[in-house]
């Protein structure tokens, strides 16, 4: 695909949870909890309200189509009345603001002189208040990771939304965790560039050492448009490895929608406003969905035959797009004649349906089954989306599905969804404050330094620089532990024993540091490290583990063992000469089980062998 030719323009928004002690607008910890640990729940309704400028946000308006907007929230001993929307917010967390400014400085941005907290209307249930608090902190920066560089439009500090447990149930533990939102200009021209920029920003974020790690703690939204298409925002790409695929698939979708539009125009297609009630037609149907429906309504799309069923993205058709709109009214989905007979609907029923809807061979009939109210609402949405097919690509917000295809979520929101958070004072960012913001070393610089300064090999340097335990590595080295030993233990050894099934997360940095120091001052051999760590994971203290697994061995004792090994293999040694050193090393090491350092063993062994030969 020649992305230049189709005029691909893409920008990204990266949402990263910050690893602060407290939440953004209350003093609760930023800890995720098991839903089983909840200690209460409550139910609330949400409804769209007017913005300060008098408008109602179109995304919120669409959300209002849902009949029952009652949401359930789980609360915990680590959440409070602020999350419950039962208490005004606390002043903005200064730690989170400081971190956001650090990020802004790292991306060469200009801070806003006075930061104002806004309420962004979101009534899908993910915020108990019906809005998300967000503030614009800095503007206009640049990063240099793609040819020509990428411009960073803004960085916002906002509160994380509540996590959906299932359906309309949300968990309040995540609500209020500080989130930095970095928005780039639409500077990326290929799917690969999108991935590159996202990964570079990810690196900048992690360089602070103060961001949350793990699945769901960073989410990317991608804005994509092509020539003749429209701006589409794809929300919540959690896996960086999929981001380029998402772009490719969206390009494909837009190209297909444009070609459907052209085909519709050529055919002289139209959307009939006439709605047909066809409930009776399916009284004795074998389709269980249609049979139990209280009301079945149908509409005719003139000249749409074959196009509704046309695939526009892997696993997605124009019919799926229309269905997404209908689902906003709470219906399960729709049937269309491009895919029927199927799902228990017979050819005769299709024929009768087409007759009832006065549909010809070139037309497509869409039907929807539910309560009368919901079905009517869904028909309105079906007509709305079908008409949009004549425009090609509608501007909208979409959500990512598995594998990288997407589904319609809601219209692109506008400025109408924002109004001031009056309960939080504005914060001035004066020059002195801005000057005091320190920039941390980038992980990529760190990686380079580890190779040059510590002589680590490139791969290990990178791995340790990007590892969560990098600060521990640096601390250990500063305390005199050999860099190689520290890096290998912290990165490779931990990884190896994790693969054996040990929960390495339970080993604290403190314990790791004690083990490393023990090795460094000769209390244990480095060969004993895996076993010591395993013992620590199983609940032993580092001291006990070292004493048990690698009790101190005197040189005398070690020499004794070596002598014994040699005396048992005189024939072999006589035969091999000094070549026996290697194999004997292995025997002694096994015998000592990590209680002595390899280097010391080697020295004594060599001495004893020379003596004998």
């Amino acid at each position, binding site marked *: 695909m020649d992305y230049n030719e189709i005029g691909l323009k893409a920008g990204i928004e990266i949402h990263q949870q910050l690893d602060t002690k407290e939440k953004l607008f209350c003093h609760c910890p930023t800890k995720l909890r098991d839903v089983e640990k909840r200690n209460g729940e*409550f*139910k*609330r*309704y*949400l*409804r*769209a*309200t*007017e913005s*300060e*400028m*008098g*408008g109602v946000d179109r995304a*919120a308006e669409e959300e209002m189509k849902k009949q029952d907007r*009652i949401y359930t929230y789980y609360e915990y001993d680590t959440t409070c*009345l602020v999350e*419950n*929307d*039962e*208490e*005004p917010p606390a002043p903005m967390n200064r730690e989170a603001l400081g971190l956001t400014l650090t990020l802004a400085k790292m991306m060469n*941005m*200009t801070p*806003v*002189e*006075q*930061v*104002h907290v*806004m*309420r*962004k*209307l979101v*009534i899908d249930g993910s915020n*108990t*208040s*019906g*809005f998300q608090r*967000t*503030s*614009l902190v*800095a*503007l*206009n920066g640049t990063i240099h990771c793609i040819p020509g560089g990428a411009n960073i439009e803004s960085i*916002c500090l906002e509160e994380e939304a509540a996590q959906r447990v299932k359906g309309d149930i949300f968990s309040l533990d995540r609500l209020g965790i500080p989130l930095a939102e970095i928005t780039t200009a639409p500077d990326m021209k290929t799917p690969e560039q999108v991935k590159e920029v996202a990964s570079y920003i990810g690196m900048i974020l992690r360089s602070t050492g103060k961001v949350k790690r793990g699945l769901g703690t960073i989410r990317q939204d991608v804005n994509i448009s092509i020539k003749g298409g429209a701006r589409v925002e794809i929300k919540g790409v959690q896996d960086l490895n999929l981001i380029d695929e998402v772009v490719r698939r969206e390009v494909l979708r837009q190209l297909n929608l444009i070609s459907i539009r052209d085909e519709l125009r050529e055919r002289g297609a139209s959307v009939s406003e006439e709605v047909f009630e066809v409930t009776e037609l399916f009284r004795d149907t074998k389709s269980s969905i249609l049979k139990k429906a209280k009301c079945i309504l149908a509409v005719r799309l003139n000249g749409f035959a074959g196009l509704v069923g046309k695939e526009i993205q892997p696993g997605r058709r124009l019919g799926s797009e229309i269905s997404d709109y209908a689902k906003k009214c709470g219906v399960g989905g729709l049937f269309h004649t491009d895919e029927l007979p199927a799902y228990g609907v017979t050819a005769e029923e299709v024929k009768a349906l087409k007759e009832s809807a006065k549909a010809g061979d070139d037309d497509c009939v869409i039907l929807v089954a539910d309560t009368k109210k919901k079905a009517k609402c869904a028909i309105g949405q079906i007509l709305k989306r079908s008409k949009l097919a004549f425009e090609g690509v509608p501007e909208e917000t979409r959500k990512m599905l598995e594998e990288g295809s997407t589904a319609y979520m809601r219209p692109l929101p*506008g*400025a*109408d*969804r*924002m*109004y*001031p958070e*009056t309960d939080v004072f*504005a914060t*001035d960012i004066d020059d002195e404050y801005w000057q005091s913001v320190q920039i941390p070393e980038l992980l990529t610089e760190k990686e380079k330094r580890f190779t040059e300064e510590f002589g680590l090999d490139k791969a290990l340097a990178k791995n340790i620089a990007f590892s969560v335990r990098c600060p521990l590595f640096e601390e250990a080295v500063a305390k005199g532990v050999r860099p190689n030993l520290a890096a290998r233990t912290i990165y490779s050894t931990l990884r190896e024993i994790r693969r054996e099934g040990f929960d390495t997360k339970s080993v604290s940095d403190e314990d790791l540091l004690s083990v490393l120091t023990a090795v460094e001052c000769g209390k244990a051999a480095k060969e004993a490290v895996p076993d010591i760590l395993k013992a620590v994971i199983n609940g032993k203290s580092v001291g006990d583990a070292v004493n048990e697994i690698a009790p101190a061995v005197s040189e005398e004792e070690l020499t004794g063992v070596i002598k014994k090994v040699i005396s048992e293999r005189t024939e072999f040694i006589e035969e091999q000469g000094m070549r026996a050193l290697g194999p004997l090393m292995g025997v002694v090491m096994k015998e000592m089980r990590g209680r002595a350092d390899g280097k010391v063993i080697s020295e004594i062994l060599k001495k004893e062998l020379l003596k004998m030969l």
Partner: protein
Amino acid sequence: MTIEPGERVLCTYAGTQLKGVFITERNKKAVIKLDNGYNIGVDYETLKKTEKTATHAPSQKKIEQNTSLPKLSIISTGGTIASKIDYRTGAVTSQFEADDILRAIPGLKDIACFSAHVPATILSENMTPSIWKTLSKTIYDEIKAGTKGVIVTHGTDTMAYSAAAVSFMVKTPVPICFVGSQRSADRPSSDNVMNGMCSAKAALSDLGEVTVVMHATTNDDYCTIHRGTRVRKMHTSRRDAFRSMNEKPLGKVEYPSLDVTLEEHVVRRGHNSPKLFDRLEEKTGLLYFYPGMSPDIIRAFSGYKGLVLSGTGLGHTSSVCIDAVRELAETGTEVVMTSQCLNGRVCDRVYDTGRDLLDAGITEGEDMLPEVAFVKLMWVLGQERNPSRIKELIKTDLRGETGRCTPNGL
């Protein structure tokens, strides 16, 4: 260069030109709303006026009412249920009129046909006895004009005082339902819709007294109907802040079904005929006793016609305050003792201090809430001059504010 709120501006900042609308000034910075919806504060020098555009005001769509529905009166005094952001100060203020409440709670128009009155538009901390008089008169006029029920929208902070005041000032044959909201009307999660709808149904019910209708729990599931003289705000911010004290609530209204259930002990619709008693003695005080309080503070009420003391436990002040109480009582101030415990009944016959206080001339406020006793005393002193008659009225249950027996389980 002066820029008016609502004018469009170009802002040159961070090396780019940003478009937006000037909102207000904050800490010497110009607050502008950027076209992406965010507000930021910048130096005035960065701004340039462009075309003048007035901000569009919130829609003023006329509310079509169904005149075949029963008639209810909605009387607005302000408060969070009717609040909106003031872009001048950036704080939440009351500036809605009753019609706006119908707009904010569209479901109301399917329940009744409303006539709206705005005797005051204030935050509830600015309420005064004189506004209680205006409010009572407005309510009384509506009742005389044949309304089926009255809804009073009110700020929650002093709603219990106003409900108690209206309880004494208006004898009513129809329900008078005070309602408010704890979370502002401009937020999607506001409790104004549920409270408003439930209060409308309560105002159409078989009640015949002054009530407060508010969220019963933190859930949007039902509202409790509290008696106007037995209710108290017990939480600063939760939506279920209101509780009935020393008495079971009068009933509840389920949401969203809006089914009303009333208890046995309610005063029924039509039981009283309408009367207005709008005289209040404003030289009445309410004082919260605390350990170590100087008797001078009590003496500061010298010249007052009445003083309610919110005492400790069964109804005490420290011994050093007793002389000051005696001086007040002897110079004609009616001193009523209530308890900081809120739950339970005053009894000054158990401990010596209590007996001394009785001897000094206080009247026991029975199981009345301190603020209800305060409003009642103000009202009684407005109606009656005779000291022994005043004492008698204080101890007599007039509007369900006090009972002969303290009920079980409360």
